[in-house]
């Protein structure tokens, strides 16, 4: 039962924040996999997204900005029988924690890494993130971002992740299907979730994602095909991208 995985607290997220959908999907996926909550350790980073662990009923650890992955790997290596999730924002995983993200992919410890992508820093009130597009205007880039954005899925493929998937937080059916697979996957699994920040991101809205995301149609067991279709779509694909 998915409420077994819920601490019953009212999240402090803004009404309409994409992270609500992520929380629900994670709880429902764990419930349908029937993993007892006490065998789940959820480690999160810092950010609006990082608050997610506090709302889950499990062994939960709200760590430090960008460091959820090293801590989660330490837990899993010490206690392989536990189901270990790492969760965080796009700044957490692709700015301050990027090195840990890439290294975790190649280290291939059996954990699931869930990123809530809103293309900016929510908690610090809307600065640019490494996923923000060029020209993106935020508090810290008043004249528009000058840097090219990363495409998370292609980074993870290049780093050797064995399971890479993407979904919108609004699409519970697809998202839960992927999360269940990712959690069951033996090895490092990466799920990137487009999770809009309704307060600070006036461009990448639910509507925008609806218009720009399309389901992946390539052969997801072929690394070369996965890479080229992700790059072609500039990352805006949903579904299973790659599974080794």
């Amino acid at each position, binding site marked *: 039962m998915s409420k077994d995985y819920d*601490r019953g607290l009212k999240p402090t997220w803004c009404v309409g924040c994409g992270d609500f959908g992520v929380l629900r999907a994670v709880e429902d996926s764990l419930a349908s996999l029937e993993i007892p909550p006490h065998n789940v350790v959820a480690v999160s980073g810092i950010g609006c997204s990082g608050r997610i662990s506090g709302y889950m009923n499990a062994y*939960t*650890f*709200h760590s430090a900005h960008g*460091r959820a992955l090293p801590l989660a*790997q*330490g837990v899993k290596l010490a206690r392989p029988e536990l189901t270990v999730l790492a969760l965080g924002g796009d700044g957490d995983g692709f700015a301050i924690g990027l*090195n840990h993200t890439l290294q975790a992919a190649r*280290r291939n410890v059996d954990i699931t890494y869930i990123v809530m992508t809103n293309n900016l820093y929510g908690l610090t009130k809307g600065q640019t993130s490494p996923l923000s597009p060029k020209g993106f205007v935020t508090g810290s880039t008043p004249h528009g971002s000058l840097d090219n954005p990363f495409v998370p899925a292609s980074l993870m493929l290049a780093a050797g992740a064995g399971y890479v998937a993407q979904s919108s937080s609004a699409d519970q059916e697809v998202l839960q299907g992927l999360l269940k697979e990712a959690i069951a996957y033996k090895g490092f699994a990466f799920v990137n979730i487009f999770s809009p920040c309704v307060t600070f991101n006036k461009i990448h809205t639910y509507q925008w994602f609806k218009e720009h995301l399309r389901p992946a149609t390539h052969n997801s067991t072929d690394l070369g095909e996965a890479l080229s279709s992700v790059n072609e779509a500039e990352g805006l694909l949903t579904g299973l991208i790659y599974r080794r």
Partner: protein
Amino acid sequence: MHYCIKLGGIQGEGVDTVGELLSAYLHARGFHVYAYRNFTSRIRGGYSSHEIAFGKEPVRSKQANVDLLIALDGEALRRDRGLVSEKGLIITDESATEESQPRLLSFPIASKAKTGPGNVYKWTMALGVMGALLNIPEKEWHSVIAAAFERKGQAVIDTNLAALSLGYGLAGSSPQVSSPVPDLDGSQVREHQGSRLIQGSEAIVESALMAGCDFTAGYPISPASEVFSLLAREFKPDGPRRAVQTEDEISAVFMAVGASYAGATPLVATSGPGLSLMTEGIGLAAMTRTPLVVIDAQRTGPSTGMPTKHEQSDLALALAGGHGDAKPLVMAPSCVEDIFTDLPRAFLLAEQYRSPVLFLTDFALMSARTDIDALHFSGSDLAAARSKRILPGVPDQMFHSTGNQQGADGLPTDMPGPRKAYMTERMKTLSKVPEGDNFSYTKAGHNLLIVALGSTRGAVEAAWPEIRHEASALYLRLLSPLPVEELESIFASHKRILVLDCNASGQLLSHLKANFSPHDKFCSALRFDGEPFMGEDIIRAVKEAMDNE
């Protein structure tokens, strides 16, 4: 009476290998040994030396003077000949100098090595030259060489023995010289069953395993890397990984926090630059009350400093532990023997206090090799202490951990009340001085109390016969919480307190002054040139302290 034989030459050519052979021989003969390595931060080339102090009395520090110098190239000769005492002897290679004097003997070691067994054997040949000049029977080396090269196979043993013979041959024709190390006459100095040679990094690994350490994560850095390597060798490759070389020290410390939270007994070892990075994880361990033991093998700073040189300059950072009152427990073993009691104690205190513990060692303590007697270990009750903590996997006990301020329910809060209550309780816990060996005190003279940390103890002990009438000595092993009450009466019973700081700013002095008064009772001696304190420094500092009284 201690002697010193110094080997100097080009890094990577065998100085250390032959230094270790010599230490092994001296130890087998019953001498106490202290072998200090000096190397630069490059792999091949550059000056390196291996100096072995030995004698019939225990020795735990470098000697200022050298009795016998073997310098096989010009640079080593130039650097070190000034250290050689009046009655000392220099053995050198013909390529290094054209000089020849009664106390400077040169031999065609390198050229004969090149045409004979090969250049890599020239240090073994030099050992042979030395053996002949000191009248050590050649066969005495056989068992030492066989043991040292056992893993490399019989061919390597045989070639070394042949090179040694060549050395004996080279020296055979030279005139008799009076030995600069007369006690080294082939006789057995003492029986010492159970005694062995060990360096601090090995002691750390042995005692960590004894204490139940089952996980390590690390990023290579001198002089701490060896701890990781030795642990990695002990952890067998079957099953989940237990030694992870991470992408940086941040990752290493967070992995350890995760492992500890989940119930493992991790150890991370680093040095200054790595400690700077680790403060983030130390703070998280402090805030989430997660046990964590971090070894900091201090070297010269700030920044990269001199990566292979000695210093004790991380105390201030260790005491803070990071931003925002992280305040870990801070320990500092004063000798290899202490490591065997203090490291298991560190794991236990980390668990009992639910706090990070910083375990400060230093370059000399980590890398100098010395003899220790057989030790008797008493087990620690780590498992009992840990059983009071809930670990993931237990039904119906789920809880939240967070680096944010948490209230009594474990959930984040920014209310003044819970914040204050939490910090008050934490500070109270952290200020409780545990029972046990918080310092080592050698009581003698009343005029002066010497306070020192880590390997500096060896220098104080070297000076001891000269200063004991004036001074007592105290080696602090627990620096936070500082055992103020116990120390107060000792401090009060001495007229002055001389604080030895192997750093430029007097970090230990500041720490003591922050906790004790009157301040004019304190005086200080500093050394921060990359070398550890030596006996002479201590004698001089004691004299100055007494003169200025």
